[in-house]
């Protein structure tokens, strides 16, 4: 959740670049609604069935609460046509991408646009 706070703080920087920030977890809709209230400038998605996580193959088996499956922290930049243009997957789940590095990746990916 810490990374969401950082993204929320920098939301104007993303708005300036006309990039929306979509954050996805396996939380149910009620938890996602709470998260949305906490971070109103992000787009919070509930992926309780892990349909999106499976499509993007970001599941980490057995590392969630009670040995459940959870998301391995992974970040994608997706263009307006739905194509992956950049991705970041740390080799350890303790590592998070800082908003500054993400903004740098956005600038690098869409420079000149």
């Amino acid at each position, binding site marked *: 959740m810490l990374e969401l706070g950082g993204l929320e703080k920098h939301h104007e920087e993303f708005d300036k670049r006309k990039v929306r920030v979509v954050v996805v977890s396996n939380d149910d809709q009620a938890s996602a609604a709470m998260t949305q209230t906490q971070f109103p400038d992000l787009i919070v998605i*509930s992926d309780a069935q892990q349909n999106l996580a499976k499509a993007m193959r970001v599941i980490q088996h057995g590392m969630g609460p009670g040995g459940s499956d959870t998301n391995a922290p992974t970040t994608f930049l997706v263009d307006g046509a739905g194509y992956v243009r950049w991705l970041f997957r740390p080799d350890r789940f303790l590592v998070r991408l800082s908003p500054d590095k993400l903004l740098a990746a956005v600038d690098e990916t869409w420079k000149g646009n």
Partner: protein
Amino acid sequence: MENLPSNTGVSVPPRRWPLFLMGVLMFLLGPAISVVQVILGQLGMPWHVPVLAAVGVLFMAGSVLQRPGVWRSVGLVVFALLCGLEWFFVLVVAKTPPYEGPQVSDKVPEFAATYADGRAFTNKDLEDGKPSVLLFYRGHW
């Protein structure tokens, strides 16, 4: 003035708790640095935690070698085990599986999820002309 002999003539090794306590402090410094990093919003790999723990254990081992004692030895074993657990966590447990999903230039596959308000969110929502950051996180727990 005349030099007087020491009162007993038996040399007593100095107490080594300061060295042991330095080791404990070194051990605790790693988590303390991590707390500060979290407060500052920096979430990098906390290699400093097991490294400082190992240095702390070395200090404690030095203390035990210089002045063995039951409690000091028990403390050393406990902290050495904790240090081993920290290394196991960062080297083994914390590893993410290799990424095998869509690569750069691949299209996001079809999926169906929901917005926080219950509306459907699908791959089509990422194809409306506006670029997106799509970030997967570990959730509310």
